[in-house]
């Protein structure tokens, strides 16, 4: 779990205590390690929580937290065998509801993932969203995310209409099938320098950022882990060649960041309007200095090739301008000029 090592805030700890008690009631004699694994916590976090639960309770009739007003555990089992046995229960019978925002986050997350092959059964997803709404303490707040259409029809509220399957959903389904059958994927890929090559890939993981989807896999042509944008893939097929690298292999290490900087990267200086800075944050190296110039920000961009740079800058006309080096300015100018020339 990604958040295993994170320190918990007080609200997280409370949510955890309220969640742990019902689980312990259903798992009498559970080991500390088992609880840690299930909740994605460290054994130390579990022990700390159990010790707190064991001395907590209600003021009771005497307002003095008498023995019977408190939870209790079998201390010998806990201290000697790392086993959690609740011997007295108070106040809590069941798991808590989701808050409106918690339910809304999960519902919007499910919508976003509707292109995944796992989500192909729309009726099942609708029923799952319904359960989240009923399991919330108030009406989930209004956050929505568009997902890709996987099936032939989408209910827009104004009646059902036919939609062609989304290319994204088809590619995702093919990738999953290749992993399920344990065979390599073969595809045409347009790399960031515009060259098209036939590649054979062992799929390792699907990643996404907003509307952009990526496949990370072992590329047999490059003999290394590579990242492929799904919308640059065409003519993908499933081969008969068995997969050689899996995400669970010990020698396969997926870097955490999608866009790892390379020593061959080129640095260019640009000026950009402040409101557009977030759009470029993936390309701005850590520690780059930014200074103001006439209401614009001057900063450094790191790009692998001018091929990508000229496209990026041409899609931000009037918003971002390359200042230096001259070769980068010339590449952008030529690109835009050739584009404009098509209309004469």
């Amino acid at each position, binding site marked *: 779990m990604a*958040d295993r090592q994170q320190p918990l805030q007080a*609200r997280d700890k409370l*949510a955890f205590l*309220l*969640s742990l008690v019902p*689980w312990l009631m259903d798992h009498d004699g559970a080991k500390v390690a088992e609880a840690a694994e*299930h909740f994605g916590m460290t054994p130390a976090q579990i022990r700390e929580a159990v010790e707190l639960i064991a*001395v*907590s309770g209600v*003021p009771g009739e*005497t307002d003095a*937290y*008498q023995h019977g007003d408190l939870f209790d555990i079998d201390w010998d089992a806990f201290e000697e065998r790392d086993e959690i046995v609740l011997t007295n229960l108070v106040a809590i019978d069941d*798991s808590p*509801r989701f808050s*409106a925002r*918690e339910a809304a986050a*999960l519902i*919007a*997350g*499910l919508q*976003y*993932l509707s292109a995944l092959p796992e989500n192909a059964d729309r009726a099942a997803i609708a029923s799952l969203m319904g*359960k989240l709404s*009923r*399991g919330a*303490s108030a009406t989930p707040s*209004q*956050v*929505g*995310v*568009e997902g*890709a259409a996987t099936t032939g029809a989408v209910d*827009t509220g*104004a009646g059902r209409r036919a*939609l062609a399957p989304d*290319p994204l959903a088809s590619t995702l389904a093919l990738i*999953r099938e290749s992993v*399920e059958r344990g065979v390599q994927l073969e595809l045409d890929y*347009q790399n960031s320098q515009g060259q*098209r090559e036939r590649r054979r890939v062992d799929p390792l*993981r*699907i*990643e*996404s*950022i*907003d*509307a*952009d989807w990526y496949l990370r896999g072992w590329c047999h042509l490059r003999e290394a882990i590579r990242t492929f944008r799904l*919308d640059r893939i065409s003519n993908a097929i499933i081969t008969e060649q068995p997969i050689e690298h899996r995400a669970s292999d010990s020698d396969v290490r997926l870097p955490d960041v999608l866009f790892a900087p390379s020593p061959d990267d080129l640095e260019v200086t640009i000026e950009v309007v402040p*409101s557009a800075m977030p759009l470029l944050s993936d390309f701005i190296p850590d520690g780059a200095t930014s200074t103001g110039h006439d209401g614009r920000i001057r900063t450094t961009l790191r790009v692998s090739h001018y091929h990508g740079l000229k*496209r990026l800058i*041409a*899609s931000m*006309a*009037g918003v971002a301008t390359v200042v230096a080096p001259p070769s980068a300015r010339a590449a952008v100018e030529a690109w*835009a*000029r050739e584009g*404009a020339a098509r*209309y004469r």
Partner: protein
Amino acid sequence: MPSSPGPAASATASRVPVEERLFSLVLALLATESGLTKNEILSTVQGYRQRFRAGGDNTNLERQFERDKDDIRDLGVPLETIDSPGDAGNNQMLRYRIPRGAYELPKDVTFTSGETTLLNLAAMVWREGSLSGESRRALLKLRSLGVAAEEPVLGYAPRVRLRDAAFEPLSSALEKHLIVRFPYLKPGEERAREREVIPLALVQYQGRWHLSAEETAPSGSDGDGARKTFLLRRIVGPVVLGKAAPARPGDHAGAALASLDAVWERGVAEVQVVTDSDAATRLTNRRGTERLAASVDAGAPGRAEERLRLHFVDLNILADELAGFGPEVLVIGPPELRGAVISRLERTAHDHG
């Protein structure tokens, strides 16, 4: 003093951890049928009672209790107040409780291991930004039910970003049902204009966050104002939260997505792309793209081109994207899109000349 090993023993300890105080508050309010008054809570509940001064000034402790109430309500714990009969409106006699039925997850809400797997993925979507705490806590509650997730066939690492500065204040206004004001810059306009709206929903469509909102009716008129969709990226200044907004029940997120879908359906552009170029691959892989002709006269010998029909929501955003493809794309129509792409390309060439 009782001889229990419980908190009574540590009653003299100067500091009770926050989570212990909050946990004790929830337990005490769940256990009471008739409710507890604020004074009863402060004088008896673990974490408060250690700092309670009988007959003295408890202002700080009362403030602490107010903050704690907000914290536990934020977690979805329904904290109820009951007016004392015959003494309605008297704050000191107000009784607090957590009704069990509204606190506990309904019995019929259960999840299969397949559903648990999907919900784990759904929570992972919000790894960064203001919804990450919400999804982390939602997962703890889900795990409370004890259902183990299935190991997915293929690993996923989905992520939705909340980079627009306006997201957080708008989401908080939605939560609290407040009217908001913000400066909005429409494309083609020189200056941002101040808008005042009732927020209805925040939706991400094709990678961009939109606010669906109702314009506040001009004073003196009654009836509802017009529904508008605002692109968060075009909110160019601070979002100011205002007074309480009138209730607007309904599935606004669903309606906003459906109306964006309808706009997308109507918005049609025709372009010519260089075969096998980056533009051809990426535009063909866009949802809804149709290939109208596999090969058309490119006007240049040795160059193959094809014609595509695309759908779009916002002409200016599509023009930005198409301008990025430079000479790989020729816009056939509509004329406004063609003009917008030409002026972008000329601007870029000029700025770099």
